[in-house]
């Protein structure tokens, strides 16, 4: 009945693990208690969990991302603390626990921090930038969200019941096979990826369709804001790369659970296939993470330099070139597995070629700033910090792309420094910049800039302190994933790295402090216009927060920077006398239910609870069938209701002084 789930699943093996489990359980209970105490369950369910509004789904994605950022960061600072003290001793973490931590850190940061963060930003912004009322498939959007959350839930519950994988975030066999890792850890990892991966594939399909088919009338492809372009490219990569992850995770699961021999050491298994399959997904994945950030930087640079984006077309072509090339370089993740020199050389060169379109982008951003009137808003600071830091990471990447060099550096902390040097400035800074930039659009007030600058400075300084020493350590020969070491000359570097992580800790704290302070003082920072930064693209044409339907009247577009043109012509704030009814998707519980089933399926397969697996799969199927036979998933917003909302907006605009210069009603 209970499969492998016994009392031994509880983490009695170490105090640190026990503490982690207790904290997790406490946080869940506390959250439930607070919601109950505030009497908000109904509100939460009706307005948020069952919502299919792209803006709310986006907010929920980002909240998930922030929670997982904290979790991933706790893992990170624990590793830094361990390595800071573990010279010739065990440190405070037993080896197996340390291995769980680097695995969960990598897995969480990539799948459950970065992916939800970027998906959340895309959700909030892209439909508004397109002049659309929602995404193409609002219900599927909700399913994607809840499948992602289900995956995160599987990683979360692994803290309490059983252990997480110790096989690293890429789970290479044979170590991740049932022979070397008989426990539930790798299965948790597999199912977290499978469940959330399906969500990401659907997100990809959803946004490709949204962007290609739901643009405002007149908007040509070459007039789409750059964030939309990078989203399109990211969505294409999601739709085409994530199936590879599904396949590789499923095959590993078949090896482990059913006893097949895809990647085993015996009976004709082939481990090289695993490396190939996972990196066919994995390399595009890093561009999935980075491209939306590039989009944010493009928008932010243009707005805060008060200039049109330099080289719009070259940015578009560079984005598409990167997307295409990203499928041609996966082998650089295993140069050392002994392909022939010619194969390695070809993939090395292909890798270096990616630096070219990336360089084009860097120059475009720099030229946008040249002679601009730059405002040093936190979003802009992140952009500048990104440009400088990312170039360093790019250079070390080109170094690693030279196969002989990679033979020296692979599996050292040099590599760890390199990919953090790409991902922290290249992805996370972009998401932070996006948060600073679009927060008022979502909530109707601006974020506190002092704390924004704190977030920026702590993350930037902390990043340099934490990762520059790792370059040096890598050159000194320190391998990655080390639980203890015997070289006294490594320790000073590791202490500096630990100090860096502490500075980042202040940065993480500042993220939440900024929210807290801004919410407390929200009345002083209201954004009444919907356009707090004098923006250029259509999302700034809506009110802040935008009405459920975004645009009461869909705008006509005939240039890049559509909203900027509208303001120049004095057409930005026109109100018609009459509105048409608008049809919007109605909320539905089906998304949450499917997510729940996804979680249960994963949990059941991890613990061999076959009855539960069947039950959950049948339930998921039933929900899908019922939902797909439904012809009435929509509700009508009447012209009167629209008139009421829009009149309020008009009154609000009139109350703002000086806006009439931009064409607002006086």
């Amino acid at each position, binding site marked *: 009945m209970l499969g492998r789930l016994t009392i031994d699943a509880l983490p009695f093996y170490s105090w640190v693990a026990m503490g982690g489990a207790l904290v997790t359980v406490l946080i869940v209970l506390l959250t439930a208690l607070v919601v109950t105490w505030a009497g908000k369950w109904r509100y939460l369910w009706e307005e948020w969990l069952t919502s299919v509004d792209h803006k709310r789904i986006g907010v929920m994605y980002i909240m998930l991302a922030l929670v997982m950022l904290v979790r991933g960061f706790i893992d990170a600072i624990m590793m830094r603390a361990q390595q800071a003290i573990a010279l010739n001793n065990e440190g405070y973490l037993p080896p197996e626990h340390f291995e769980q931590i680097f695995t969960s850190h990598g897995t969480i940061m990539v799948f459950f921090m970065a992916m939800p963060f970027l998906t959340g930003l895309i959700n909030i912004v892209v439909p508004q930038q397109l002049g659309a009322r929602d995404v*193409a498939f609002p219900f599927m959007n909700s399913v994607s969200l809840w499948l992602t959350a289900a995956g995160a839930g599987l990683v979360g519950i692994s803290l309490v019941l059983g252990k997480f994988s110790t096989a690293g975030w890429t789970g290479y066999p044979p170590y991740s096979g049932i022979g070397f890792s008989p426990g539930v850890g790798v299965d948790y990892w597999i199912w977290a990826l499978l469940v959330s991966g399906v969500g990401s594939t659907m997100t990809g399909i959803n946004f490709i369709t949204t962007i290609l088919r739901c643009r405002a009338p007149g908007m040509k492809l070459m007039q789409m804001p750059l964030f939309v372009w990078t989203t399109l490219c990211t969505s294409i990569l999601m739709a085409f790369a994530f199936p590879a992850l599904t396949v590789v995770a499923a095959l590993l699961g078949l090896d482990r659970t*059913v006893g097949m021999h*895809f990647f085993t050491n015996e009976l004709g298994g082939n481990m090289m296939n695993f490396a190939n399959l996972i990196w066919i997904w994995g390399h595009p994945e890093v561009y999935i993470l980075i491209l939306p950030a590039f989009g944010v930087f493009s928008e932010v640079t243009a707005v805060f330099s008060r200039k049109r984006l330099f080289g719009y077309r070259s940015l578009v072509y560079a984005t598409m070139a990167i997307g295409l090339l990203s499928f041609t370089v996966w082998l650089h993740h295993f140069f050392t597995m002994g392909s022939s020199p010619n194969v390695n050389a070809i993939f090395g060169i292909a890798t270096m070629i990616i630096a070219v379109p990336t360089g084009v982008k860097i120059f475009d951003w720099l030229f946008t700033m040249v002679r601009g009137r730059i405002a040093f808003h936190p979003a802009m600071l992140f952009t500048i910090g990104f440009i400088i830091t990312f170039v360093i990471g790019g250079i070390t990447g080109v170094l690693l792309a030279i196969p002989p060099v990679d033979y020296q550096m692979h599996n050292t902390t040099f590599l760890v420094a390199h990919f953090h040097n790409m991902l922290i400035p290249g992805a996370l800074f972009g998401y932070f910049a996006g948060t600073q930039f679009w927060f008022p659009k979502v909530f109707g007030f601006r974020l506190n800039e002092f704390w924004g600058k704190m977030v920026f400075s702590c993350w930037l300084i902390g990043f340099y302190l934490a990762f520059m020493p790792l370059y040096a350590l890598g050159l000194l020969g320190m391998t990655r994933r080390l639980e203890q070491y015997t070289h006294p000359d490594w320790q000073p570097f590791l202490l500096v790295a630990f100090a860096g992580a502490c500075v980042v800790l202040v940065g993480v704290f500042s993220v939440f402090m900024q929210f807290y302070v801004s919410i407390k003082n929200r009345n002083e920072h209201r954004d009444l216009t919907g356009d707090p930064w004098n923006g250029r693209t259509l999302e700034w044409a809506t009110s802040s927060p935008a009405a459920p339907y975004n645009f009461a009247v869909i705008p006509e577009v005939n240039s890049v920077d559509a909203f900027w043109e509208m303001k120049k012509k004095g057409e930005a704030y026109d109100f018609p006398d009459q509105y048409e009814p608008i049809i919007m998707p109605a909320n539905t519980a089906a998304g949450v239910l499917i997510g729940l089933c996804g979680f249960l399926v994963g949990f059941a397969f991890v613990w061999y609870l076959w009855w539960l697996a069947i039950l959950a799969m049948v339930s998921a199927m039933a929900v899908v069938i019922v939902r797909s036979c439904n012809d009435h998933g929509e509700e009508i917003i009447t012209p009167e209701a629209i008139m009421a909302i829009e009149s309020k907006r008009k009154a609000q605009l009139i109350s703002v002084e000086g806006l009439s210069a931009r064409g607002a009603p006086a």
Partner: protein
Amino acid sequence: MSHNRLQQVMAEHLEECLDNREFGFWLYLMTDAIIFALLFATYVSMFRNTANGPEPINLFDLKHVSLETACLLISSVTFGFAWLAAMNKKLPTVMLWLIITLVFGVSFVSLEIAEFAEMIREGAGPQASGYLSSFFTLVATHGIHVSIGMLGILMMVLQVFMKGLTPQVCSRLFRLGLFWHFLDIVWIGIFSVVYLPVFI
């Protein structure tokens, strides 16, 4: 705001929705095609990894496979007839052809299950070697798809019966048809890559 205007807005909205769904469905098929492509690649790369176990030459029965293939190909044709009948708004004919399609689908899956059972009985199950793991995974993934497609056909029979040929139902039928024909194409791939090389 007149009632007529509302009707018009709703009709436009519906049309747009259904168009988007068709477009999105093509994209979905592409993602599924990638899954199959990778399974094919895995199969080909493991063709020689029989680990001294059963060899492909001794495993398959040409008659059996031909029968399977015939069932699936014919079912695609009968689905086509169902779609034609739907275009002509002939409701009972649609249901008839759908049920015929279902019968062929069930035959296909039963034949496949029989083949698998026979192989497993002979000791050539998916655990016997890397080659057989990849064989079973590739072919069964297709089989599971077909089974889901059959569930879809069953749902469509019910919907056609209960709702008639509304635009929504027709759109669903069209998308299910794409799925069904897609599986046919995948099967032709399986037939040419998995079975044919063994027989010639």
